[in-house]
């Protein structure tokens, strides 16, 4: 049986700047296969309360996109193999300038970019700048995407396709596994790219159910909740991240039967 990838999301600079690089390492130690690092944004329209709060915590420290790229550079000085994808909102990247972002992100060692509010039909200018950098531009498919849009999104994507598992914001709790399965199949017949499923996967049990039908599961809010625990020390946050990641990784191993 194929191995399902585990993708973990945290927001850069949350809850304070000097934890982020260590947190990325802690996630890798727990068994994360792909890292998603959120660019904090003042108006995160698609996020639920948990990841909104993470952005607010990070922005209290004035974390900028340049800071985020610096964190990636530092992380890459001791980890060159784990794929790292930046996720955020277009205004951060467009304000830096597409050309400048592409150059800096490539130098820092970024492997992919997900812009939550950038559909393929508006992405030409950014795509052109990313072309020669090797940075994948990853688009999202939603339960409401028509077959026609799935086809269009599949042809615009590189790296993988991110399937948003429910109608709603990140961290919501009304995930329907059979609907996810149907939709992943709908994507698979239109694309050869791997399909990662995210939004609403909070615990090892859900991760296991989704891992059967997807190439990867993305866990965000559950990990970000650990980052946001009030009064927690850096050590306890990092060990909490490793522990939950390890449980998630174990749950989605093909042979795993117990959660």
């Amino acid at each position, binding site marked *: 049986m194929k191995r399902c990838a585990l993708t973990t999301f945290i927001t850069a600079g949350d809850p304070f700047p000097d934890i982020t690089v260590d947190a990325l390492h802690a996630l890798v130690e727990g068994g994360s296969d792909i890292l998603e690092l959120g660019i904090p944004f003042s*108006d995160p329209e698609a996020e639920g309360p948990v990841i909104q709060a993470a952005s607010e915590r990070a922005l209290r420290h004035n974390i900028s*996109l340049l800071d985020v790229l610096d964190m990636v550079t530092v992380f890459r000085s001791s980890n060159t193999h784990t794929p790292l994808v930046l996720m955020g909102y277009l*205004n951060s990247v467009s304000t830096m300038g597409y050309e400048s972002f592409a150059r800096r992100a490539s130098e820092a060692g970024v492997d992919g970019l997900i812009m939550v509010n950038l559909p393929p039909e508006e992405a030409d200018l950014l795509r052109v700048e990313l072309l020669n950098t090797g940075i994948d531009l990853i688009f999202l498919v*939603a339960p*409401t*995407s028509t077959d026609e849009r799935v086809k269009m999104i599949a042809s615009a994507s590189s790296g993988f396709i991110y399937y948003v598992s429910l*109608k709603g914001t990140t961290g919501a709790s009304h995930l329907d596994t059979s609907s996810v399965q149907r939709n992943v199949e709908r994507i698979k017949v239109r694309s050869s790219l791997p399909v990662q499923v995210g939004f609403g996967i909070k615990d090892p049990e859900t991760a296991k159910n989704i891992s059967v039908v997807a190439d990867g599961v993305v866990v965000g809010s559950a990990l970000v909740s650990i980052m946001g625990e009030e009064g927690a020390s850096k050590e306890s946050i990092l060990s909490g991240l490793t522990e939950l990641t390890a449980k998630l990784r174990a749950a989605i191993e093909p042979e795993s039967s117990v959660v």
Partner: protein
Amino acid sequence: MNETYSQPDARGHFGEFGGRFVAETLFHALDELNALYSKLSKDADFRREFLHDLQTYVGRPTPLYFARGLTEKLGGAQIFLKREDLNHTGAHKVNNTIGQALIAKRMGKPRIIAETGAGQHGVATATVAARLGLKCCIYMGSEDIKRQSLNVYRMKLLGAEVIPVESGSKTLKDAMNEALRDWTTNVDDTHYIIGTVAGPHPYPVMVRDFQSVIGQEARAQCLQMNGRLPDLLVACVGGGSNAIGLFHPFVNDPDVSMVGVEAGGLGLETGKHAAPLNDGHAGVLHGNRTYLMTNSDGQISETHSISAGLDYPGVGPEHSYLKDIGRVKYESVTDTQALAAFHLLTRVEGILPALESSHAVAWVIDAAPAMPTKDIVIVNLSGRGDKDIMTVAGIDGIEL
């Protein structure tokens, strides 16, 4: 301008502005809305139904009123007020909610949501929802709820649920974020009535079309009263729906000048304002590309204005385009100027303008004396000021 104005393009672009920048989940709903609206905008029956509601329920046409007192006081151009404050619910906002409610009905969606700043759009939405028996949720920043308690109670009386938004700056932009999140979650049974000419395509064009009744009437009224078109149109600009509504029907008349007045807050130089066209950068927020108030890292700035309805860091994308092509001039006035205009209009004309509309009046108070007495200026009096009485009294140190 030699060629006829034909913005936006099929995908909602006004030049480099507008478009659709939202999460994928909403695309299908936007496509459906766009397809239906494209059909209805050419449908004579729909137009008739819309105008019938405006006439029998809203009270249109609103008068174009020659403000003799103000004109004489200023001693320059002749000032006419387009009396949108006389609409049912007290502002121009209802022109749009009437239109969008008819669309929600045709789509068979039983639930309506909206964002609101000053509460005027919230009230206008709750009003049409009550009339059509639709469930209604209004998102409103908790700061604005404090500033506009009267309108909050009005919405509740109308049967709407008012949901306080505690995130970010707790004002209009955050209410819009929250409404977008709600729509993403409940897209199957919910229509989102955006209150201004912003948001993803087709909202900017759809809201413009509904609000254009303002300019269509003003044009005909001005021709009838004066035998010619006006020289200048003036309107306040937050998101910009009352301004587009007045301006759009004149956009191909090269001799009609237009001024949009943004909220200068404590002054442009202080950074505490809500004037993205005067002091902003092009960026992407709330589904469209437009001028925004941001910091150097693209984070959306907190805005300041005495008027909750103008307290927004963005602006409708068509205004960004009209600014760049030079068709409309965008100016700003401060809180203090707006407040003085509020008092002056009240005293010389017996009309209490909304603090939003007071910005347009304030710019005219400044500009009119230097204009020739033959010039005709139309000011959009977009709403009435009853809702602002507590704010004004507070500033004047009066406890009610």
